[in-house]
């Protein structure tokens, strides 16, 4: 109970701080929309063509735009040495990690939920045909990106080139989650529900989320304190 309360306190603090400055969310949202709009001019917009690329396009945009949010996650603690106070506070590293991961999850998800209708309009795609399943994939894929991004944000927080290092370190690890989310999203946008052909991707996505959440929870104390 106390653990959950501490996670909640950290999540609310991060969301409140972000919503006051809107530094990361504005940059991320702007980036996502610009890329979606620019790509809409670059690609042939036949229904079939768009359906094929929809998963890849959306998740690459989400991953790139999400990195702008994830980069700020622990970097937000650097001014005034707030990270010291958090590390000194009697909260488990895992609660701090989960609190930050949930805040990042909400912010990245918000960017995705704004981007989807824009994608539908500019690419002339009826993306809501399998909405509940698409939302499930969105939740699972976003959690995967968020967990990896948050732990690596902690790892790179004191590196001078962290804005460059974070994507370089995280994208290769995110590949399985991105691959699963892309395959499932393409199928769902095309109106095909998750079936025997695609269920293995869903299982992989769930497995990825569970494994990397567990690994991050175990490693976060070492990452923060050494």
């Amino acid at each position: 109970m106390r653990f959950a309360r501490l996670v909640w306190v950290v999540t609310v603090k991060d969301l409140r701080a972000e919503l006051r400055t809107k530094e990361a969310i504005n940059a991320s949202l702007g980036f996502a929309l610009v890329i979606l709009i620019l790509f809409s001019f670059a690609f042939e917009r036949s229904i079939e063509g768009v359906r094929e690329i929809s998963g890849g396009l959306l998740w690459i945009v989400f991953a790139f735009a999400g990195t702008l949010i994830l980069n700020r996650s622990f970097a937000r603690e650097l001014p005034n040495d707030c990270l010291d106070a958090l590390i000194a506070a009697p909260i488990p590293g895992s609660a701090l990690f989960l609190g930050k991961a949930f805040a990042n999850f909400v912010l990245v998800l918000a960017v995705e939920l704004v981007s989807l209708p824009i994608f539908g309009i500019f690419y002339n795609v009826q993306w809501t045909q399998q909405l509940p399943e698409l939302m499930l994939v969105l939740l699972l894929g976003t959690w995967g990106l968020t967990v990896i991004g948050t732990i690596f944000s902690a790892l790179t927080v004191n590196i001078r080139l962290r804005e460059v290092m974070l994507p370089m370190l995280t994208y290769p690890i995110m590949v399985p989650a991105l691959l699963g989310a892309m395959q499932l999203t393409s199928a769902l946008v095309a109106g095909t529900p998750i079936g025997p052909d695609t269920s293995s991707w869903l299982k992989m996505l769930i497995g990825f989320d569970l494994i990397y959440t567990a690994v991050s929870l175990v490693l976060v104390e070492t990452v923060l304190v050494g």
Partner: protein
Amino acid sequence: MNAVAVDGVWKFYGDFPALRNIRLEAPEGGCLALIGRNGAGKTTLLRTIAGFSRPGKGRIEIFGKEPRDIQARRRMGYIGHGISVYDELSALENLTLYGKLYSLPDPHRAALEWLERTGLARVAHGLVREFSRGMRQRLAVARAFLHEPSVLLLDEPFTALDDRAIAVLQSLLRDGLAQGKTIVMSTHQLREALELATHVALLNRGQVAFLGPCTPEMVSDPGYVYARYGEGG
């Protein structure tokens, strides 16, 4: 009982030993002033005691527990070089946040009480980014004292403080010592520190060059310890 015990601690940055076989204790209710030239290892030692990084060798205990132990952290207050409060939050939100992180029974009331004690009650709802430097420093003091820690680890606590903040901090530290709190502080402001100190440790190139009780000679002549025990002493 020793509130803080440092036993044979080494800390390496790469191959460079920033701390070399440090052994010292801060008795419960005492005030240990860590003094030394720039680069002597004061901040590294305090950060290692606070549990921000682990020693390469040796052992540190806060009331018999490892610094990363939750119980040890609950009893510890730290003021470092930064004020450790969020610019985007108000003074009240900052202190309430830390009150919640320390699981205080009524974080909001504790926050209001400490804003009052540090003379910040009238700006409780103001964002920290709009505060003057002195106000920010007083808020940092309130943040460190909020959970009534038994051990205070203070890294250069008087540096860059305005007169009012120095007065607030000294008064709080005196009250704390009277209540039996333990203080370990690193400082270059010897006069302010030695007025409070019961013990003095002089660090020189990562080693303890002197450790002993604070004597009247030290208080009357803050340069005495450097002259007698420092390099060239």
